[in-house]
């Protein structure tokens, strides 16, 4: 049973049911019984503690859920287990193929709240408004020029413009806002392979192994966003001061390098002015570091209710290079440490026995909003990897490439 979550992208999940799952349960899972009676697009709900749905209200399950997924695929094998899979609720805004809520948009002077509300309210059904942390700023103006665009593409433009992010919570509420307001700045956990147990004064301690990568492969000195302003092609650029000199790469003071390193991207639709295009470029520049630092961490004692996606993690293992000499000092396991802070941008984890797993479909016996819940927890094939999690971290900002890579390729290569 594996769940994969990615910031502002669909992710995926997969469950295997034990071979002795009753026929009655398996039948209710059928993706397609008839054109009017099917379980496809049902909701997978995961809670930290298992409860029989007849004993608690379905609304409570949603409140306690740490994951909500959309059920898309069912796989039967002869004499074998039943496998269910799907992806995250972000698919309603645009899935990995670019399918989703496609429509044309016209934003005239939309502030942060109006921009996000128009994405959310246009036919997305149960996804209700959560909380907005408005970062302020110039209004967003954009016209898709009567072309159909997916909501996720539009959200990319909106969030570059406001330097913000969005997320869909497991209870199907939609949040948007500036990152540190939305996720907080307090680290949610500390990865310390040589520590043994939780300590007072520190966030939960996770152990395991880590691979830390630093690269300049994605470095760009200029970001050039090409779009259409008042019917005429225009370019908005954002740049950074740092510019390696190609004959002497570490001489950053060279004022006229022989070659500049520029990255082009094209955006669709009609833009109000070149300042808007420049805001898009700045939005990308803000989130792409001079050097990209990622850490892959394999945790051996993960608890799924920690809900780490999007939050900061502290990492400390000086002999493996996981140290930040400018950070505040902490004490852990009797050592003084200067942990580095990185942000969780992708997670893959298994569930442990004891979690509650439910499918919310048109069949089943307990209803929420007239749609029944099927209790799957007793029939899940919990795998041996249930306690391990693979976490990908980046510096305390997402790289937009990571967030969009399964879907949106506006960068010209």
């Amino acid at each position, binding site marked *: 049973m594996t769940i994969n979550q990615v910031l502002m992208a669909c992710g995926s999940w997969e469950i295997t049911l034990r071979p002795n799952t009753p026929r009655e349960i398996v039948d209710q899972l059928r993706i397609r019984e008839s054109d009017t009676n099917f379980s496809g697009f049902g909701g997978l709900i995961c809670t930290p503690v298992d409860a029989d749905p007849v004993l608690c209200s379905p609304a409570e399950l949603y409140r306690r859920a740490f994951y909500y997924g959309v059920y898309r695929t069912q796989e039967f094998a002869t004499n074998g287990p039943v496998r269910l899979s799907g992806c995250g609720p972000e698919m309603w805004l645009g899935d990995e193929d670019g399918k989703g809520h496609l429509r044309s948009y016209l934003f005239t002077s939309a502030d942060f709240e109006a921009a996000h509300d128009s994405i959310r309210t246009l036919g997305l059904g149960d996804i209700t408004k959560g909380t907005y942390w408005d970062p302020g700023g110039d209004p967003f103006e954009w016209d898709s020029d009567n072309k159909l665009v997916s909501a996720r593409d539009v959200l990319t433009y909106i969030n570059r413009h406001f330097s913000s992010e969005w997320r869909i919570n497991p209870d199907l509420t939609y949040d948007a806002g500036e990152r540190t307001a939305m996720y907080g700045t307090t680290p949610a956990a500390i990865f310390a392979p040589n520590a043994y147990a939780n300590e*007072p*004064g520190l966030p939960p301690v996770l152990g395991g192994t880590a691979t830390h990568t630093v690269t300049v492969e994605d470095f760009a000195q200029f970001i050039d966003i090409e779009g259409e302003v008042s019917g005429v092609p225009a370019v908005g650029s954002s740049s950074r001061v740092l510019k390696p000199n190609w004959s002497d790469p570490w001489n950053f003071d060279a004022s006229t390098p022989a070659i500049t390193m520029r990255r082009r991207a094209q955006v669709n639709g009609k833009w109000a002015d070149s300042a808007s295009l420049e805001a898009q470029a700045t939005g990308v520049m803000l989130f792409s570091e001079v050097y990209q630092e990622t850490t892959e961490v394999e945790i051996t004692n993960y608890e799924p209710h920690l809900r780490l996606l999007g939050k900061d993690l502290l990492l400390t293992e000086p*002999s493996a290079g996981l*140290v930040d*000499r400018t950070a505040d*000092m902490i004490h852990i*396991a*009797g050592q003084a*440490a*200067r942990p580095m802070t990185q942000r969780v941008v992708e997670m893959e984890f298994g569930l442990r026995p004891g979690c509650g797993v439910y499918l919310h479909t048109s069949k089943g016996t307990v209803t929420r909003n007239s749609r029944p819940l099927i209790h799957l927890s007793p029939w899940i094939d919990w795998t041996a990897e249930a306690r391990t999690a693979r976490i990908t971290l980046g510096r305390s900002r997402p790289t937009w490439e990571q967030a969009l890579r399964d879907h949106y390729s506006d960068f010209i290569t």
Partner: protein
Amino acid sequence: MTFGPVGLGDVELIAPYEASDSGDEVSFTAQFTADTPALWRAQAQQLVGCANNPDERAFELTFDRTNPLLDPAFIGWYEPLDIAVDRPLAGEHACVGELSMTLRRITGYSAPRIESLFDTWILANTIPVTDGYQRPHWAIPSALIEFDGPAGGTWGTRQSSTGELRFWWDSRTDTNRDGFADSLFWCPAEGHAYDGAATIECKLDDDSDWFTITGLWAPNQPQGWRLGNGCVRCWWDGTTLRFEWYDGSVWETQIGVNLFGSLAAGDLATLTSATPIRNSSEECVIRTTWFCESVETMGRVVVDLVLRRGSRMVTGILKCDTADKWAIQEVTETNCNTITGGLLGAAINGNRFLLMSADTVTKTTADALMVLDTSSTSFVFGVGCEIGGSGSSTPNNYASELLGFLAAGSERKVIRER
């Protein structure tokens, strides 16, 4: 025969003894014996503990070369792959058991390179001592085959009860450096790898003597543990934390230290458990848990006691759930003097003890007492000693001890092939 810090040299190996090697693996089986059942059990723990210690992954195996029964060709450095001890059953002799070890040779029969990865910076403090003024120190056994130490700084010696140490401290006057990070290469002479090592000792289960434990599995005996390194040692005697120091020839200058919360916690009167959380020759850490007088309102109180090889200062890191104004006091309330960073005790056996803190404290010299000014959920303190009293000089004087206390950091060693 010794394996790591295990004093098998004191233990007679009884024939039959078998050894075989294949590729880079060496296997031994032997019977071994001890004078008492408690000693035998301690030896068994030491042997097995060598194989499950994440902090110390390789050991030196040495033989007495004059013993005709033992093949000196096996002397070298090994990584334990498997160590098994067959314990005697009821009815069998309680002091004889079978040992089998499978080891992987690291460098053939010759000496390895030990690389110590050493990274320090200034301990966050309100004394204030600013970054650049702390004085990290580092100690290795004096008997060496080779070493390449840190650039700059000053070398000296320090005598521990388990052998002489080569002692380095950072005496450079460059105040612009951001801590100190280096790779240091050394290799001890045969039989001297554990001179002056930081150790965790436990009382034998018949309470007769102490034995060094290896690995992290120690019996939970709140009054039966001792943290030491041949220069200082620390234990709990049932009512107080006790410290004593080695002045080069004898153990003396014993003091007792009490911890308490001056607002709500009351006395930290009961040490409820002691767990080794790091056990390697360069540093040992014991985590102690405590009950205070008002434990229901205070929650957990944990004190990590940290000791490095060659240091005379035991660092204590108290962490708790509920903030309080934590305090430290020498138990006989010997009249003290105020010094930067703490209190300097009167001379006992010619040496002056030190109580230090990195946080802002109010000192009462007549009561040998330091109390935090502001409630906090953490309290970092040090208990050390100026050996030689007022006649001492750098690095043994109290000013140096303070600057060493403030050089926080981490050290790990890796055994490398040549």
